[in-house]
């Protein structure tokens, strides 16, 4: 006979444990894909006739591939995965997750078509007609690639930010934070591969700028929580002396932001072609940010009434 009758819900108490590493990986890979889309699309828009190195052109295919991998992790997180098509049986305008499901549907064809235009080779038959059709639309596809990347990057943050019951996430700055972090990891990912020196220099400069912006946004996010109400202050305390203090300031700030910022600044100052150390650190920091946020956010909530009614 079941005799436990107080708050005995192992999935909820002593704290929420519903989203695990799969969700963090999905948010990381989604942000990474968004970053690649924004950067490659913007580079093409900036100079429509620039000849890219073959590696950079091929890397534009990584956006749909990494997003597919991320969506696989998201699918693994579903408790009822064989009902997944239900996401596309309706559109709930008030649910960011529903927006996300439809944004993903837009992002796939756009990123695939854009990648096609960057890596086309000689085609024949029907493929030639498709190739010509896509080539004519290279500029609008690049613009859509940027727009789709921005929507995807923002959505990964807004998904968490819309959940008012979790004060750590419930900040309008989470969308911009995930967007700029996604763009930064996108630049870092591209720098892992063998690119031309001029491409490495441009991406290194861009990543330096993005990491600096991310540090500012992280600071604003923490400051907005610290100056908020009881629940917000309790949430930010997790990083200011609480159980996530060491992991956040070590992995996210020191490893993922401060060290790459210093390394990329030194590279730029001395005219050195960016290497792979700073990008690896940026990627570690990007994953740590999402992993820690997903975990820490679930331990925050509306306080149990402390005063008797």
């Amino acid at each position, binding site marked *: 006979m079941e005799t436990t009758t107080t708050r005995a819900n192992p999935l909820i108490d002593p704290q929420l444990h*519903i989203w695990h590493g799969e969700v963090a990986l999905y948010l990381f890979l989604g942000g990474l894909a968004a970053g690649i889309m924004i950067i490659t699309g913007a580079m093409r828009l900036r100079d429509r006739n620039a000849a890219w190195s073959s590696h950079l052109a091929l890397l534009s295919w990584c956006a749909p591939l990494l997003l597919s991998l991320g969506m696989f992790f998201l699918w693994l997180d579903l408790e009822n995965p064989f009902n997944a098509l239900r996401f596309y049986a309706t559109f709930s305008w008030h649910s960011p997750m529903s927006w996300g499901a439809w944004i993903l549907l837009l992002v796939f064809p756009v990123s695939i078509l854009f990648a096609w235009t960057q890596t086309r080779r000689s085609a024949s038959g029907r493929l030639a007609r498709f190739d010509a059709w896509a080539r004519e639309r290279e500029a609008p596809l690049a613009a859509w690639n940027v727009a789709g990347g921005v929507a995807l990057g923002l959505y990964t943050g807004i998904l968490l930010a819309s959940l008012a019951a979790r004060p750590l996430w419930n900040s309008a700055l989470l969308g911009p934070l995930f967007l700029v972090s996604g763009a930064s990891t996108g630049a870092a990912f591209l720098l892992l591969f063998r690119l031309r020196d001029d491409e490495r220099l441009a991406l290194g400069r861009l990543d330096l700028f993005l990491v600096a912006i991310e540090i500012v946004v992280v600071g604003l996010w923490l400051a907005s929580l610290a100056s908020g109400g009881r629940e917000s202050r309790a949430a930010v305390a997790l990083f200011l002396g609480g159980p996530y203090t060491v992991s956040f300031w070590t992995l996210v700030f020191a490893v993922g932001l401060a060290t790459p910022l210093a390394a990329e600044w030194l590279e730029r100052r001395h005219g050195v072609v960016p290497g792979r150390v700073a990008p690896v650190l940026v990627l570690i920091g990007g994953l740590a940010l999402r992993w820690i946020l997903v975990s820490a956010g679930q331990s925050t909530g509306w306080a149990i009434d402390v005063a008797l009614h």
Partner: protein
Amino acid sequence: MSRRSRYVMVIDARTCVGCSGCVIACRTENNVAPGHSRDWIFTETAGSFPKLRMTIRSERCNHCKNAACVRACPTGASWYGPGGSVQVNADKCTGCKACIAGCPYDARFVDPRTGTVDKCTFCMHRIDRGMPTTACQDTCPTQSIHFGDLNDAASEVSKLLATREWYTLRPEAGTQPMVYYLK
């Protein structure tokens, strides 16, 4: 034109003794997954010895008028059912858990047997069949739990809320909870 119902629950926190009968009755009535609860007993002691005061109350989904779970649900599986109650359509549920993360009362959980979300339904299967009471209400030995239509001025819940002082849980969350506690 028929009048629209607004189902609410009124729980007398002065007479609840925390016997947990409501929890057991709910589990039995609704075949709740082992180890999980759709309702639970909350106890709180305040003050300094020897001036102590204790609150005991039976808590559950608040069937909010402005439900965060319904807003978070991407598939329409969480919806406003009869009398404004919040229900879950398991056929539409993907188990994404956005509703669980969105609920400020932590009233929801995943049923491990089905992979879908479960919570208090206000025993709508009984109400739909014309029964006037929920299982927890039926079993409460101190008759602390009352269920009814707030839009019916003659109902017991309307009279209680009109004549007694009451409060709701975390009204600052803005969800407009429909479970009331009598002081």
